[in-house]
């Protein structure tokens, strides 16, 4: 259900941006989401399509890019991916069910994940935020990309 609030956040941001930049029609929104947030892409798209109506986004398509994060352990320097900590992620999911912490807030990763090599929680996550990485707009018949 959390997908609806993410869609809301994206739509409001783009509408504000369009107003500021006097854009009349947005054709595409490129959204980056961290893979370990486990947002359901289908639900996110459905929510986006429902909520975009009667706005500058009416004809906009949502393109989702799943960002594979790189974790870096500050203690031992080991670099790893979310695949390397899959078992830990499964444990979180089994404790919390569907709405588990990392689904809501990927930035909580250091609290729930530890370095597979040395066990430290002192890990940095690259690309933990949901980001709008590009917007395509229709300007006098042609499409242009803004990022």
């Amino acid at each position, binding site marked *: *259900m*959390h997908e*609806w*609030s*993410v869609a*809301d*956040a*994206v739509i*409001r*941001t783009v509408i*504000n*941006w369009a107003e500021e930049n006097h854009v009349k029609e947005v054709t595409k929104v490129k959204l980056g989401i961290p893979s370990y947030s486990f947002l359901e892409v289908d639900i996110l798209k459905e929510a986006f399509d429902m909520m975009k109506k009667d706005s500058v986004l009416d004809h906009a398509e949502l393109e989702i890019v799943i960002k594979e994060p790189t974790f870096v352990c*500050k203690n031992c320097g080991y670099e790893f991916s979310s695949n390397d900590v899959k078992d830990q992620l499964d444990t979180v999911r089994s*404790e*919390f069910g569907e*709405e588990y*912490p990392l689904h*809501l*807030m990927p*930035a*909580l*990763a*250091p*609290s*729930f994940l530890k370095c597979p090599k040395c066990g430290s*929680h*002192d*890990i*940095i*996550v690259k690309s*933990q*935020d*949901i*980001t*709008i990485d590009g917007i395509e707009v229709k300007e006098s018949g042609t499409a242009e990309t803004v990022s």
Partner: protein
Amino acid sequence: MEPLRQLAKEKLSGRKIFAVMSAKGGVGKSIFSAIFSLVLSEKEDVTLIDMDIHTMASSKLFGFEGKLHEVSKNGIEPFNIGRLNLISLSGVVKNNYVILPGGNQSSVMESLISFSNLKGNVVFDMPPGLGDELLVLEKLANNYSPLVVTTPSKVSIKVVKYLLDYIEKEKGKKNVSLVVNMAYFNCDDKIVKPFGSVNYDELKYEGYSFDKIVEIPIDPKIEDYIGRIQDYSGEIKEKIKNDFLK
């Protein structure tokens, strides 16, 4: 572009924002935040957001420890106590401890605000000191009213000046309230000040000015209300009611 920051800003705009802050831990900030929010909620909708993610005291005070927030299409649903809505990170992580490197802290704070189904005015229970949370708060809602909590102890007053220097002198805030917690207790109608008195003239002389100064009494009965602070109706509550909301 970061949609979460944008949404957090929008969610806070148009609301009155109170930030309960302290320079030092252990001055009773969370109890004050809880009772202050309860008093506000007698008249209007209020959302208390517990930003002190390392103690997460609010959920303990209200008896929501170990409970998870429901998540609906509207986002994270607060715990309800009448017209008071409580949002706590503990409702997301349950009893797990939280370790967050710098940058993640602000990101968690932004998501907590942007995903929550906020209602009415907002009270932030801030962590002690001058951390990331304060910088994030300023980015999201620069118009907040600071309620700075201290005890009468000399150390606490000394430390609180750093915080005041920042928000008053640096940020030019004029609407600062000073909350002197555990200021006195009522002993058979005699006022006893076990931690000494605050020299307000000296503070004034040093250039600090306050919109309000409120002394909060010690009420030993409060201990019986940990876990059900919503049922408390003693001296502290009366004092907050009379001094803040007149």
